[in-house]
């Protein structure tokens, strides 16, 4: 039959193993450098190309201006990089705070158990029962909007799935035979936490954190796009896209298409980075 799935070689030759690992490492390096380049680009490029150049306004993409120019003659590539860098930094900060909350609550729920666990699980359920975007809008609005509003809203709403993963991991490890044995042997709790818990939870945390970034960045962009996020004076990527809306009907398609494409690329880069770090850290795939 044609249907037989390509069988995975159970024991690939030794040379190929090295290659797979090297490929993963190369992928991580490329993804990391790409994202780092976007983040630091405003400092490298400076403010050149951001000034008003009326003779060069509304030009379609060309070699001189790969992303075209806007209605004030500003280079869209530079504007997009500035905006994306800002969005990535805001997203990274919010996602990191979120990961801290998620890890903390997940660990507490998984190790303390009892009613504490029940309360945390219930809070997670309540968070899941509201559409994520509505929750983001509500929190961003309640804390007063602006950059602070976005960071708080994104940080407060992205911890739930990571907390679940960490909780499950902690539960699983603390009921494992070797941990029970350690306890019976009289090892102190801290020693168990250091030697049995941390090696299991750190990889989960790292992968969870990297995979949180794309969500955080997309939500930051969405909030800025609808006008609740960063102020219009700080041209984040969401604001650049929202501004482009006014000029689309006149046919300046590149104002909306190109910055969005860059945003899509960087979100995919984060996904890619996360998947590769996962396959590097996961014992099931790291050797194969």
């Amino acid at each position, binding site marked *: 039959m044609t249907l037989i799935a390509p069988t995975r070689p159970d024991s690939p030759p030794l040379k190929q193993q090295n290659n797979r690992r090297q490929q993963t490492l190369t992928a991580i390096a490329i993804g990391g450098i790409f994202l780092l380049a976007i983040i630091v680009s405003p400092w490298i490029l400076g403010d050149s190309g951001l000034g008003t150049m009326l003779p060069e306004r509304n030009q379609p993409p060309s070699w001189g201006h790969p992303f075209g120019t806007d209605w004030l003659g500003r280079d869209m590539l530079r504007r997009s990089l500035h905006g994306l860098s800002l969005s990535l930094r805001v997203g990274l900060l919010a996602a990191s705070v979120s990961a801290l909350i998620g890890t903390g609550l997940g660990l507490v729920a998984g190790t303390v158990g009892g009613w504490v666990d029940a309360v945390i699980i219930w809070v997670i359920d309540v968070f899941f029962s*509201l559409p*994520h975007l509505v929750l983001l809008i509500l929190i961003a609005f309640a804390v007063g909007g602006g950059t602070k509003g976005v960071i708080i809203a994104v940080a407060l709403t992205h911890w739930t799935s990571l907390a679940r993963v960490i909780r499950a991991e902690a539960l699983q490890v603390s009921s494992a035979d070797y941990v029970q044995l350690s306890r019976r042997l009289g090892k102190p709790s801290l020693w168990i936490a250091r030697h049995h818990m941390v090696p299991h939870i750190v990889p989960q945390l790292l992968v969870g954190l990297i995979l949180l970034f794309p969500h955080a960045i997309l939500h930051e962009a969405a909030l800025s796009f609808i006008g609740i996020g960063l102020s219009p004076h700080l041209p984040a990527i969401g604001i650049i896209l929202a501004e482009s809306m006014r000029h689309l009907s006149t046919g300046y398609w590149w104002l909306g298409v190109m910055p969005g494409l860059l945003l899509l690329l960087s979100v995919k880069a984060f996904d890619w980075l996360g998947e590769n770090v996962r396959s590097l850290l996961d014992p099931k795939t790291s050797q194969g």
Partner: protein
Amino acid sequence: MDMRVKPLLLFIVIFAAQKLLRLGLLLMAVAVFTFVLLSFSPIDPVKAYIGADMMQISPEQQVLIAERWGLDQPIGERFLDWLGQLVQGNLGTSLVFNQPVSEVIASRFQASLQMLAIAWLFSGLLGLALGITAGALQGRWPDRLIRFYAYTLASAPTFWVALLLLIIFAVSFKIAPVCCAAPPGVLSQNVTFWQRLHHLLLPAAALSIIGIANITLHTRQKLIDVLHSDYVLFARAQGESLWNIVRYHGFRNILLPAITLQFASLSELFGGSVLVEQVFAYPGLGEATVQAALRSDIPLLVGIVFFSALFVYTGNTLADLAYPVIDPRIRLGDSLT
């Protein structure tokens, strides 16, 4: 016959009671959460209410408004007051639309509902079809193409996809309207069904394109699991064709997770509609959400938060109800007989 019906009825009553209790608890939690959040917020409700007329209203009058609203009372009493009104179904008056919040939500949701329904059905059917195709042809080029599409869309910003559709179909090809729910200058009672559909189609398409990714990837994985099972191997050994295996062995098995997922996606769908309606300036509930947040319309925002919780909850409950219809192993009442 009577013996069979009675436990079934009992089961339905228990099921409904359980669901209602859970819903009550959930709405209560949302109420506490929203109240705490908004009462610690730096936004002054009196200032938000008065808005631009701040200069014309003296501080004494502002104090009077605060007293009239009970803002001088302790926080616990305020919460109970508010909750009492909520329980009676009084969500307050929207400041932006100058109408009771429940009326605003009802009329706005009607406008959104058709769009959400089209997007929901379309993304479900198309996602299922793409998932089955990719799963059945695992590793071949259609599978690669579909997977690439799904993964790319999973990381594409919703509003950007809507923008692209707007650029392609409304601006370049001019086959779809640029905005709104009806042609400009036409009274709402004169809008024909086709005009409405015409304006609905592009936002609905944007929503379904984004909704497809998740269900496609899950269906694909599930079908691959099924195709690697022993009973499929046996069917194949008997010379069953791929199409028949998918139809008789795969379909029912993948339908259940797909339906769960599709109902659970109501939450994503609602969030997506906020962004898509913003792009197309479609006057639905999502657009009202943005208006409420941008113009500090707290009653409307809180009303929408409650409504969206109810919406998501309904979706999950429908998924629970759909199980026994599809899967004979978990028929209603079977556990009791």
